[in-house]
């Protein structure tokens, strides 16, 4: 009997954790999009007010963001310092292309950011600021979409995890 109770509890905990894991992805996507927006706003002020080159701006982003999004920027700076033949914005785009799933971004979010990075640094200030305004607008749309999905699915997956566990226990008993 004790074994059955322990087993049941373990099943319910496992399925609940699985459901929580699925639900947290929606929250992480939302948070990652907002962090990218913050990062781009830091870059905007570095470009607009200080005319800082991108390696400097990226380091400011790393210092300003306490998350794995900031780590992307730091990694790009470190790679660029070893090989300056590649544009640092393209280095960052490659990193995001390869690792965007870690941040729970969707392909459309990633594509928006990578397209922005392909233009970053290659033209004058007016064009850079236009590019930044454009990407911030698109990321806002992604953020709204992520918020709707988060609100819709986050609780759903948490509840589904718990209920699936209870259902499994009932069936097995």
């Amino acid at each position, binding site marked *: 009997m004790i074994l059955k109770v322990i087993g049941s509890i373990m099943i319910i905990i496992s399925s609940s954790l699985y459901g929580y894991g699925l639900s947290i992805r929606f929250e992480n996507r939302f948070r990652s999009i907002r962090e990218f927006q913050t990062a781009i706003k830091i870059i905007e002020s570095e*470009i607009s007010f200080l*005319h*800082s*080159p*991108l*390696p400097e*701006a990226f380091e400011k982003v790393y210092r300003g963001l306490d998350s794995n999004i900031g780590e992307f920027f730091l990694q790009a700076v470190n790679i*660029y310092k070893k090989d*300056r*033949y590649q*544009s*640092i*914005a393209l280095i960052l785009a490659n990193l995001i292309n390869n690792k965007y799933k870690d941040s729970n971004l969707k392909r459309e979010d990633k594509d928006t950011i990578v397209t922005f990075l392909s233009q970053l*640094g*290659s*033209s*004058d*200030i007016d*064009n*850079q600021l236009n590019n930044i305004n454009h990407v911030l607008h698109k990321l806002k749309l992604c953020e709204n979409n992520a918020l709707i999905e988060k609100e819709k699915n986050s609780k759903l997956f948490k509840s589904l995890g718990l209920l699936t566990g209870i259902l499994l226990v009932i069936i097995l008993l």
Partner: protein
Amino acid sequence: MIANTSSKKISDDLRSRDNTVNALPEAVRSNLYGRIKSIISSIGYEESVRLEEIRMKIEKPLMVANSSGDYFVNASGILTKNYREAYIVSEDDLTKTLELMSDSSVYAVQDELINGYITIRGGHRVGVVGKVLLRNGSIYNLKNISSLNIRIAREVIGAADKLIEHILRDENLQNTLIISPPQCGKTTILRDLARQLSNGNDSKGIKGVKVGIVDERSELAACFKGVAQNDVGLRTDVLDGCPKAYGIYMMLRSMSPEVIITDEIGTKEDIMALSTVLNAGVKVITSVHGYGRQDILNRPDLRDLIMGNLFDKIVVLSNINGPGTIEEIWERNEL
């Protein structure tokens, strides 16, 4: 050694030499892209130590220049007078080199580009030309960049040794104007003057003074990210990238310098600002482009500058015996 390409034997000799040593500053080489970098790095020590300019034009031969003239460079890094042997610079070579110089951030050098040059680490100045874009009658940007001229800056410690004894009278500094054509070392001499006046030198009777450099074109101190790349002395403050007419006032108000040093004055505003400084009891050392007394007297603004008795000493430079040759020195009462 320079190749005269009419002689195959000489060219063969040159190809067999040791090209492993290259005296170009790392800051220059690290800002050259791919093929250009390997070619320029292949130039042997003897030639590279004398290089003054590296010239790149899209679809034109790669060139370098030193005090004895200009040369084409072939794909092995050998200098030649035959343009047919030269490496032809591609658009990619030039645009990628410019990207490297701007740290992948063209916008960050936009202000410098519209002045026609950018300054890279080490104080080397890169002249840039292309299609100029105008907005409201002013230069707004430069696009389709077609030529780069990398001018290799070399500090010459002691370059002002000969001049400094002429501009000191009883340990007092004289207001001095240096007249010089391009490539005759006036910037190098001004920089060394700043260093010597700022540091002081008991053996020459120079006590260290507070020096303010207004470095409109980042040539004197060659600041990179705010840090002077050249030794301009312990007591020297540098106002970098600021138009001289404003910078002279700012320096006067903010740092209470005893001497203000600036390069290549020319506009009426510059001259007005200098007059204010002189009235405030601050000494001035500056330079102007020119080819001697008669040339200056034929140019209305500059004639006024000299005849206005602003300067105690006027020094004319040439490169007859190498850059920095002092041609003549006039006192105020000899004008």
